[in-house]
């Protein structure tokens, strides 16, 4: 039973709308787990069920090897997608309150939050009201609230939403540090490049159902090395209709080209060479983004 989260055949309906349908998940301890899916796929509902904020209609959920109960809540840190703090309260007080309801003793709270405030360079803001802080700072405060009670399981719903590149890197580094400390991190996102950088395992859900899951490396291997990543100047419209090509995701100056099985990438390079300036031509595994679009796109039809 060495799973941080174990969901078995979990379903949740809101009236006639099925938010999550027969979802089973096993999240190993110590992993960084990505819960992926388009908007409205049921990511947030799944997360809220893990946290016991809403109760599933069917199925069982185990957290850290046990059934969820009140005492377990203090072992989980949660960063919701819709973030918010009490705007009229001081930063230090909000964090103390949130730590206290997570079961941190009053005497231990100040030291823990000072450590985190220093890490995020927010120490001098401790006595300011939340509403006086910039949006970015509030996001960091919210993240501190998620981890201040030293949880074993950290659940982050769209943690990178609305963060600038500097803060995105900071958050990513902290997440990797936490993993090095043996914590389990579950996060949801629809931004694939972040997943590729830090995830060990993923589960892709669409319309409440799991459509793809497993170790990220295994999934990519399964799709094979039949993708060309191209950077170019000019127009590649002439590639459309080429019999060797399965699919093109053209971004204007770069493109991801999926080849048909047994097609030779060298043939494509030859065609390109005469007609556009090629800045980069790389044969690799498909990006998660391409897999995502394919999986989700297929089930749309």
């Amino acid at each position, binding site marked *: 039973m060495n799973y941080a989260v174990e969901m078995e055949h979990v379903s949740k309906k809101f009236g006639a709308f099925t938010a999550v349908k027969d979802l089973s998940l096993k999240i190993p301890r110590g992993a960084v787990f990505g819960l992926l899916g388009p908007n409205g796929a049921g990511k947030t509902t799944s997360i*809220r069920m893990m946290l016991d904020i809403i109760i599933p209609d069917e199925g069982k959920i185990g957290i850290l090897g046990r059934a969820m109960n009140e005492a377990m*809540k203090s072992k989980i840190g949660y960063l*919701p997608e819709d973030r918010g703090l009490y705007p009229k*309260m001081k930063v230090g007080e909000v964090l103390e309150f949130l730590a206290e309801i997570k079961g941190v003793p009053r005497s231990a709270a100040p030291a823990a939050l000072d450590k985190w405030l220093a890490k995020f360079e927010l120490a001098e803001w401790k006595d300011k009201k939340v509403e006086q802080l910039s949006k970015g700072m509030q996001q960091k405060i919210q993240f501190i609230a998620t981890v201040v009670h030293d949880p074993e399981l950290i659940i982050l719903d769209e943690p990178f939403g609305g963060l600038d590149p500097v803060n995105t890197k900071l958050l990513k580094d902290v997440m990797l540090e936490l993993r090095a400390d043996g914590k389990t991190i579950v996060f949801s996102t629809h931004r694939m490049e972040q997943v590729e950088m830090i995830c060990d395992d993923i589960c892709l859900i669409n319309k409440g159902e799991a459509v793809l899951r497993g170790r990220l490396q295994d999934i990519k291997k399964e799709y094979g090395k039949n993708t060309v990543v191209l950077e170019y100047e000019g127009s590649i419209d002439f590639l459309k209709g080429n019999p060797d090509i399965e699919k093109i995701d053209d971004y204007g100056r770069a493109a991801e080209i999926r080849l048909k099985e047994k097609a030779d990438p060298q043939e494509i390079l030859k065609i390109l060479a005469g007609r556009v300036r090629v800045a980069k031509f790389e044969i690799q595994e498909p990006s998660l983004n391409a897999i995502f679009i394919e999986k989700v796109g297929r089930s749309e039809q």
Partner: protein
Amino acid sequence: MKKIWTVIKREYISHVRTKAFIISTVLGPVFMLAITVLPVIMAVSGKGEKSTLAVVDGTGVLQADFAGELAKFKMGDGSEKYTVVPVAPEADADAQKSELGRGVMSGKYSGYLYIPADALSEGTAEYASRQTSDFNQIETLSHTLSDVVVGKRLKAEGLNPDKISAYTKPVKMDTVKVSEKGRERDTGGSFIVTFVLVMVLYMTMFMYGAMILRGVLEEKTNRVVEVVLSSLRPFQLMMGKILGIALVGLTQYAIWALFGYFLTQYGGSIVGSIAPGAKASGFAMASIPPYVFVYFVVFFILGYLLYATLYAAVGSASNNEKEAQQMLFPVTMCLIVPILMMQYVMRSPNSSLSVILSMIPFFAPILMLQRISIVLPPLTQVLGSIVLMILTTVGMVWLSAKIYRVGILMYGKKPSIPEIVKWIRYK
């Protein structure tokens, strides 16, 4: 339980520190002082301004008596309020009135009184001034003139005005309240106490209910609620908020009660030192039996809890203040109906309608307390309404918790009643 306590503490501290709380707590006593002391001061020193009155006496016989009567009105310093300037009547009444009007405009007179020649039989007098808003003064002039004219008429019939007024003197009547304590004089004191107690209860349910509603809405719209709910159950958050704000209310009342006590102990001497002329009024208060206050506390707590849970449920189900106001309508009605019925219950506290209304849990805090303070109803009725209220409150806490749990995480459109019923059924 420890988590509820943490929530209570946060609610309490964050409300008690707001400017609104500090201002209303300070202004409450100032207001209390104002409504008790100011009227006395005004009654003593507020005699209006001095007036110079031009009097045209068409009858030729009223002038002296009228001026004599007016001379009885004094200012605070003992000088006469009215200076009467007699003006001889002229043949052309309209021309004379215009002339006097100019005198008023120029400031020579503050007003004029024109008494026509036929005033003793049927004529209409005319009072003109730049300001006709001092009803007290107009009334005084009208009464004085009438008294003088009536006196003249009686004399003309050979009657003695003094005797007539002695004959027509109204009979005085004292109101006595009979209770277990015996007979006590009551000049309206118990009515006022009942009214104040009931109003305090009503205001509490309104004000602190609104405070809970805003608090729930704030947590919902700031999206802070989800983090909190990952640490504790919705029920703990809701009850923590309700109990925390109850403590805020009790703190405010404790401060006010302390001030009120101070005011009743020393209020008389304060008034006395500000306005030496004030005498003790003839206001007598029947003593209030202590059980009224015991029941007040019981109904205060139960009424607050009952309505607080309703406000919390409404707050959780709505997305903004406007929606909340609409959904609040039935709750507000439940609060207003008993206020509308108060006068009826005051007059017939033991009629079957009064009994039934005061047993309905949503009306009981106001109407049963009112009945108790008028005359103690049978114990079965009082206990019955308390038991009914406890049961309803427990039921409402359960129901509101179910609505709150779902509503607090629902954003978007305003939920309909069938949707809310569905929420209650969710697992």
